[in-house]
């Protein structure tokens, strides 16, 4: 597949700072079911990448297996992608992000891919703070294998077949906060504006972003007895705040409204403005955030927005004190010790 995308806009199409049109951020045609929430997420990734003027060739996309994991083929064809094996997306992202620390890493996974078979890798990738946006397209079921329960399904919820889920659900967001993740958000595929703002902030963030997007599966989990149907989520979606994202290059120009708006500044100078809707929610307070999420879950609500933010933690390449240039392209001169050094090593073994 040769991609010949270049910064040559169609006459009327708006361009971003790099001169690219939105068309330059699209991928191949989706083969998912019409109306699948996953496609709405793909659309917002394209929008946010375009608006954030990402360099497409630096974007690298990773996924496991599932309907959700197919979606890296549907956005940013300018970037490379690695659709790997079920539940192992995080390790793929880890290796590539270490091999080349200049990549912009987007991981797409499903609730099955991440919260069951891939739980171990999810947990450890978050712990290591690898530089990536980790999107869980969360529909409460295994779409690709035709609608079995996943571990995020709410206890007591029903499958189309009538089967009831007897087990408590796992919440990726509280888990991520517990693991020390510095950027935890939840959104809804039916709320493009919020998802867009979160994604743009996520692109500017250095470490692991955990973004759980409730994304209804129209084929297997969109019935009345489901807690992950469009209707149910719309009725129970509880946005925490109006989010704004201001890229570092625009910081000077943008007027940041005073008052109730809280500003979080990233190491690169970008800013997130958070105008609270939910009274008393403090996204920089780790324990407060946990408490609020648990309370809302108990009420059957989905709190959405930026649940927790702490942009100061160093990402893995920094923790490992890696050289600034990509390890992948370091030359033999820097990598191979000299004959004299081999001799010294041999002498010590004599």
């Amino acid at each position, binding site marked *: 597949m*040769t991609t010949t995308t270049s910064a040559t806009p169609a006459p009327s199409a708006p361009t971003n700072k790099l001169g690219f049109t939105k068309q330059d951020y699209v991928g191949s045609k989706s083969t998912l079911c019409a109306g699948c929430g996953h496609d709405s997420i793909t659309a917002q990734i394209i929008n946010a990448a375009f608006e954030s003027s990402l360099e497409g060739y630096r974007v690298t996309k990773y996924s496991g297996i599932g309907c959700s994991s197919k979606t890296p083929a549907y956005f940013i064809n300018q970037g*490379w992608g*690695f659709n790997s094996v079920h539940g192992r997306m995080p*390790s793929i992202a*880890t290796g590539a992000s*270490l091999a080349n620390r200049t990549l912009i890493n987007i991981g797409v996974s499903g609730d099955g891919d991440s919260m069951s078979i891939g739980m*171990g890798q999810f947990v450890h990738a978050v712990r290591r703070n690898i530089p990536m946006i980790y999107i869980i397209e969360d529909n409460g079921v295994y779409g690709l294998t035709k609608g079995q329960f996943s571990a995020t399904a709410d206890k007591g919820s029903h499958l189309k077949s009538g089967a009831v889920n007897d087990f408590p659900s796992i919440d990726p967001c509280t888990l991520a906060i517990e693991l020390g993740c510095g950027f935890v958000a939840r959104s809804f595929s039916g709320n493009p504006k919020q998802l867009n703002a979160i994604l743009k902030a996520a692109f500017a963030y250095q470490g692991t972003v955990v973004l759980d997007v409730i994304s209804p599966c129209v084929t297997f989990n969109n019935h009345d007895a489901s807690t992950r149907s469009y209707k149910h989520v719309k009725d129970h979606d509880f946005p925490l705040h109006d989010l704004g994202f201001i890229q570092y290059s625009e910081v000077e120009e943008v007027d940041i409204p005073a008052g109730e708006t809280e500003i979080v500044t990233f190491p690169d100078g970008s800013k997130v403005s958070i105008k609270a809707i939910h009274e008393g929610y403090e996204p920089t307070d780790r324990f407060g955030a946990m408490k609020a999420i648990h309370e809302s879950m108990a009420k059957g609500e989905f709190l959405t927005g930026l649940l927790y933010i702490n942009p100061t933690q160093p990402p893995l390449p920094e923790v490992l004190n890696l050289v600034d240039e990509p390890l992948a392209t370091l030359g033999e001169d820097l990598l191979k010790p000299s004959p004299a050094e081999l001799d010294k090593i041999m002498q010590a073994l004599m």
Partner: protein
Amino acid sequence: MTAALAAPSPVGGAKTRINDFSIQVATVNGSGSQTANTVLLRAIFQMGVFVSGKNLFPSNIAGLPTWFTIRASAKGYVARKASNEMLILMNPETAKEDIAKADPGALVIYDEPLQLDKLRSDLAYTPVPFQKLVTASCPEPKLHKLVKNMIYVGVAARLLGIDMEEVKKAIAKQLKGKAKAIELNQTACVAGYDWAMENLEDQDHIKVVRDNKTQGLIIIDGNEACALGALFAGVTVVGWYPITPASSLVETFIEYAEEYRKDPKTGKSTVAIVQMEDELASAGVVLSAGWAGARSMTSTAGPGVSLMSEFIGLGYYVEAPGVFFNVARTGPSTGLPTRTQQSDVELCAKCSHGDTLHVNLYPGNMEECFQFAYDAFDLAERFQTPIFVVTDLDLGMQNWSSKPFAYPSKPYDRGKVLNQQQLAEVKDWGRYKDVDGDGIPYRTLPGTPGGKGAYLTRGSGHNAYAQYSEKPEDYLEVMDRLKRKYETAKSHVPGPVFRNQGSDKGVLAFGSSDPAVIEAQDILAEGGLKTDYLRLRALPFTAEVDAFVKEKKVVYVVEQNRDGQMANLFRETYPEHATKFKSVLHYDGHAIDAKSVVDQITAFEQK
């Protein structure tokens, strides 16, 4: 006290075995005996005598029996020898059993209170008052347990005729720079030596006599040799998970990387090493780092390879490079994790589901551990595929003497990678297109600017342009090309090494079996049976291997597993010669010895 040394024993009066004997030391693990044993081994080595050591240790941190055998051989035979001329028995738990198994005439040094001398009359006993000696020589009671072992080194040195200066040097070498420990251990060792001088008669059963065979040689284990190979090969990403006997490969690498893999300008690291949560994640890191252009590796053993196998199939099918060291141990499952075996042959040859064939390298000595580790990174990038370097506990964790390693001056082969300029010139690039007819396509690396060359790697069906496809013809194109690629590898992997005596009977072995086979070949020849020996060094089988199989009337395939796994690969590859392959097996967890090989081949010949 005077011991009954050199008293006529059943072998008394026989010719003195000069530089040709085995010593077995029985201790408790965690007691510091490893240091003492290595010192004894080193001291013999410094006397210029070929020597090899095998540590037979339990899967336990402290308190279980451990045996260490040291073999000196003027002829340079370094395989394990099943019979021992000297026993040093320090473990009360096993002493009686050790005595029962002893070879007639053996010299037995033991801790006096054990009172072993009444058990058998055909052994020569030397009781040593260890506690008394240790109390006198070491002021700190806390350290008595550790230092006690040094006393037997001193006693053995005196009986064997090892120069005490060499022993002292060996202690200093072993305890690198720790002045206090060096002094303490040297003092204890001298105490043992002096006591033996005063109280024991000399013996002429076995002796070390100064020679010049080891001058300029190094002592190293295979894991360190592989780590050095990887260091010089410029590995840049390491994902691993601890497992015996593979851990020390990465752990040694980490030590070397501290010194040799820092950018001199910034002090920053030129290698990323991450201890992952398991082997699945390690495999993911290796393959994705390789995919993104790094030189990547992991080190594991059989259970880890089993866990990695889904990923390795992916790596094969999507053509992602990576080096996988398998330091094999005794399986299945946990098996005998601290014992050696070559039982992952078939696992590594075809690791994963579906049709998969992997390039495997089998180093047979320390120089090859270094060189093949180095070459594996070239092969991984040249062939864009997972490469296995298969060693085992015997190679990986035992001490071997070796010539110092030659500098690997061959420049890195980074394989067929198109950069921005090349991509701009290429008209119709397809990730999986066979442009050169060798089955190897051209790849691109994520992050290459210029707007060309991006593609999506996927484990699902794909065509030559990396597009999703379920078409039978696309599937066949990829799978048949992968087979072609494997064929191409035949001219890139190391060919076999021959040791021919001019015979139509073949012996075939690989890896750590080499020393035992060499010795067995000599013994068989002395008895009138000449053989031609082929030491296999890689999969796929090269043209020289084809010729050998065709030419020989019979091929004895020597390997350290129950099922004759390598022989199976041969029968499968050469069905028309299937009846030629006879399995010579050794799989009890101990390293193979020459006698086992001789006995089995002799039995086949007498049929």
